């Protein structure tokens, strides 16, 4: 297999991370723009890395843990870039890039695939999986944003501003960004889950609706819908909503790991 695309991807993300860190430290606008540019380049090369691998193995990227994690990293980068451009806020890049890098690099350490292939396949199923991973990526992003919110809020309340507070986004913007991200996740997971049920319904002779994954996915959907409601208008807005967002992501991680690998009989790495 050709390693050019993965190496170029890692390099672009790494340089982008360095530039975002420098932007956070110095506030130099040019450095920030270069960070965004490198992230965009990384996304393009990462796409070709996924495409090349899928073609080589004659399968979809999420077929194994490697592809699933790599796709997660790509969708996280894509969601973040969209959010950065929409909210015109680059300071968060330094905190998101490590997650993208970790997922991209950790994918290479993933053990060889020992699980049986999923029963379902086809376009509907592909959309179900891709949208579900996109939802997880968006929730991961809101998790990072909530962590930054809580850190910045604590610094502001304790009057220990230091250097970094002046560069971080305002609290209300972080809150907005987190809600935007959750909205992307909610829409994706709602459509993705519906398509999942459609896929199951189409399977000949297998119409089981009792997979624990369904329960936890509906729980995740309900919890994030609750967060979206509370963070916007009620007395929970601010730090409490951010804590709820972090808690929700813990459930997502459980769904992504424990439930997928040990409890669900029809879900693998997504």
């Amino acid at each position, binding site marked *: 297999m050709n390693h050019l695309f993965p190496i170029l991807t890692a390099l672009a993300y790494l340089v982008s991370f360095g530039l975002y860190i420098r932007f956070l430290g110095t506030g*130099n606008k040019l450095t920030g723009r270069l960070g965004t540019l490198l992230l965009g380049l990384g996304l393009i090369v990462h796409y070709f890395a996924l495409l090349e691998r899928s073609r080589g193995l004659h399968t979809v990227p999420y077929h194994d843990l490697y592809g699933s994690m790599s796709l997660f990293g790509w969708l996280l980068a894509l969601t973040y870039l969209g959010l950065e451009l929409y909210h015109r806020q680059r300071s968060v890049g330094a905190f998101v890039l490590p997650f993208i890098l970790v997922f991209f690099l950790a994918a290479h350490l993933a053990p060889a695939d020992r699980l049986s292939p999923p029963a379902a396949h086809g376009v509907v199923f592909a959309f179900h999986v891709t949208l579900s991973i996109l939802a997880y990526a968006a929730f991961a992003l809101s998790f990072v944003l909530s962590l930054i919110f809580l850190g*910045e809020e604590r610094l502001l309340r304790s009057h220990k501003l230091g*250097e970094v*507070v002046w560069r971080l986004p305002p609290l*209300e913007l972080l809150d907005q960004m987190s809600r935007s991200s959750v909205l992307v996740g909610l829409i994706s997971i709602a459509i993705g889950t519906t398509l999942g049920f459609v896929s199951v319904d189409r399977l000949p002779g297998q119409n089981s609706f009792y997979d624990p994954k369904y329960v936890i996915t509906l729980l995740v959907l309900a919890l994030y819908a609750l967060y979206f409601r509370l963070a916007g208008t009620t007395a929970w*807005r601010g730090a409490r909503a951010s804590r709820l967002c972090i808690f929700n992501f813990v459930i997502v991680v459980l769904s992504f790991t424990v439930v997928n690998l040990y409890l669900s009989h029809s879900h693998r790495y997504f």
Partner: protein
Amino acid sequence: MEIVLVGLNHRTAPVEVRERVSFTTEQAKRAAEELRARGILEETLVLSTCNRSEVYGVPPESSHECAPGLSTFLSEFHSVRPDILSVSLYHHYDREAVRHLFRVAAGLDSMLLGEAEILGQVREAYRFAHEHGATGPVLNRLFQGALEVGKRVRTETELGTRPMSVASAGVKLAERIFGKLSERKALVLGAGTISEQVVSHLRDRGIAQLQVMNRSWDRADVLAKEFGGKVIGWGEWDTALQSPDVVVSSVSAEEPVLRRDIVERAMAARGNRALFLMDLGVPRNIDPGVGELYNVYVYNTDDLSEIVQQNRNARESEIPLAQGIVDEHVAKFLSWQASVELVGLVDALRIKMREERASFIRARMEPMKHLTETDRAHVEKLMDEMLEKLLLGPAERLRGEKELRRKIQNVEALRDLFLSNREKP
């Protein structure tokens, strides 16, 4: 092509002198016209702000020779006795004048280190002088360089980013919570000088709505009218605290004006929407317990003063970086200046050699009667080619090699060596 600068600023002159030597735009125009009409300067630019009055110029002769004339002119123009003015004026020439202007544009020479306004003032002074034809190639290049320095220092360093007063620090902190203040509301308790300063900063940041509450309705009304706000009756806390995002308090009171129970009730009524309280009163106007409430941020004078001190230190630590940008652009400007001067010198040499060649050929060929017109033209052409060859190489090198231009420190000495006064460009 020398540059001279004569001026005074907050370091060299007290405000009584500065205000007498300041220029209105009309005076700046008149001064520039007179300086050129009297032949003191060929290019002129007057930079006048509340902290400095400076005249930049390109004299027809040596810059050192024109400086006394400039001082006298300033003294006459503003009707200030020369002995009063002379102790306050500074004179800078060439490299030092360039360096001074670039430091000014960078905010390194300002009373408030890194202040942003000076760059706009330099830009405006240049635009005005340029529009009125007072500048020429040298000052155009010099001030374009200064504007570039100012812009670079502001984008590449942190010299001007941090708030340097308690009022501006408070407003900047509010922006850390709410972002842009253009859709936010503020309530000001008290109508004294401090309140006025904060309101001024809030208005500069585009605050959407302003309410003023003061024990004296009349004073509140004056402040509200000045800044386009409205007055609320003293003590109507439930109404007053319902809508604002930022509350600034600066009233004289022995006991806290905003008690915990008042703010707690207000927060419940506003659905815990974030509230930023700036307590600038001494003794404090806001009960310290208010800071423990959910989504309430309280900063008092000491907290804000500490931030200002941190910011001052942070700005000072940026000086070497800003100075590096200034030095880089000074070198760039001097290199350009040297290249223009040296190329001018080479051109003058070429003219002189052509003249010499003409008289030389006339004298030497007179006895050579056997030469035909074609032969004579051929010899003349050969000499022309040789002269061009001799001068073309050095001229090209001067245009292309910065290092060579740097080595040739004194163009004037070269002129003296090769050209008579009459022939100097």
